[in-house]
């Protein structure tokens, strides 16, 4: 092939490939965007999602198993009384420490602590990131399937 025809071919290919490229990009304009409008729309999470804990205080017998197994010592449990008459006064989980390993759910004899689907805990201070699940005046326990209100920051300690 001569130099001139090579040059002409180059130019032609440059023009042609531009239009081939446009054929790829232009259809994308008419496709639906994949973006999820996050705070309003939420992803459907799998059942095994390890988010914020769901704690069923009525089942809990304050046996201290979850506190013992926690690898980062983020659970603080206090109870009055002994044995059957134990009454829980404090069940605090410090989410600045929690690594969401779900080990606390394993040894629980009554299966009262689960991992929930909420992943977006926010707070302005470190204190706000500690949630007391035993606070009866401001209950933060959810039964299974119950919709968890947003934002959860409003549930943090005032």
């Amino acid at each position, binding site marked *: 092939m001569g130099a001139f025809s090579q*040059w002409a071919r*180059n*130019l032609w290919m*440059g*023009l042609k490939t*531009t239009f081939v*490229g*446009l054929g*790829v*990009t*232009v259809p*994308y*304009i008419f*496709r639906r*965007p*994949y*973006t999820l*409008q996050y705070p309003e729309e939420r992803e459907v999470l799998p059942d095994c999602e390890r988010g914020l804990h769901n704690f069923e205080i009525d089942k809990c017998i304050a046996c201290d198993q979850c506190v013992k197994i926690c690898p980062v010592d983020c659970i603080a449990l206090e109870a009055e009384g002994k044995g059957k008459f134990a009454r829980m006064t404090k069940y605090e989980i410090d989410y600045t420490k929690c690594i969401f390993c779900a080990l606390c759910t394993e040894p629980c004899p009554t299966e009262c602590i689960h991992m929930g689907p909420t992943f977006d805990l926010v707070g302005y201070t470190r204190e706000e990131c500690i949630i007391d699940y035993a606070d009866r005046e401001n209950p933060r326990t959810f039964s299974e399937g119950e919709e968890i209100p947003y934002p959860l920051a409003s549930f943090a300690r005032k």
Partner: protein
Amino acid sequence: MIGAEPLSSSLAAWLAALFGVGATWPIQALAMLIVATGVVALVVTPVGLGGVYLERKLSGRIQNRRGPNRVGPYGLLQTLADGIKLLVQEDIVHKAADAALFRFAPYVVFLAAFTGYVVMPFAPGLTAADLDVGIFFFLAMIGIETIGVVMAGWSSNNKWSLLGSMREVAQVVSYELPLGLAAMCPVIASGSLSLNTITDMQAGPIWNWFVIRNGYWAIVMVPAFLIFYTAGLAAAKRLPFDLPEAESELVAGFHTEYSGMRFGMFFLPEYAVMLSISGVATVLFLGGYHDPFGLSAGSLAGVWWWGLIWFFLKTTVLFLLQIVLRWTLPRLRIDQVMYLCYKGLLPVAMACVVLAAVLRLL
């Protein structure tokens, strides 16, 4: 002449009557100034802001995103919010910069980009100044913008800025040749440099447009149009020719050191130049403000809103194509940019000019 009397002339006559003097040159200059300011304030700035919005929205859609959608309905006020943000931000002139040049450079770019609109025929009679050398004036204004960019790059005292502005000079000065030569083809076909005369030559149905004038002109005009559009992309520093501000190589090129509204004064002209290049391509090749059905030469002759609709319809299509091309073509290397200009576009543009001259003689 199909187009109505230029707006500035009617305004000059009105002003002369108002002051009780003859329509001498100070009155005419005043009228032109008022019309030019009006055009920039009422037409170009909203369209420029809309252009930024369109670019962001379209870029989003091509990438399967949504684009801006929080400020105002469909995110329409996003550009305005960004503008306010830029006004509020601190205006930093760093220690090593040449302060006077650094401060002055954005104005040169801004003024050059918007002065090009003075000769733009938006609609019949809606031209700030119907210059006899309209297209020449426009290309000169595109060239002057380069000076502002060089001032910015040099005075920033930053290696990236300097590299960016040097690339800008190399690129824009080179691409002015094919740009000018491609623009010569409609000029030869019409025998005039005035954008209004060129537009009015194309009145009537679609086969009067220069790009396919009487069928056989297409041999010259289609390549000339493609060259003009490509060189226009380069002159507007758009991808794939955005080497002066190639963000992955030069941070932000010549405006690396700029902040606040001075950055905004580099940012908005980019869209203004994109739009004016699209507008001039429309005027030169696609019939300007004339519709494809021949109504603007018949029943709707000289109706300004009909012309305005068609002008902006065609300009917007070319503008959107510039945006889509941005996401289609990868950025060229500087040697490839020069190759395309001197070995690709320039010989073809010259051949087009010679052929156009021959066709004109036929």
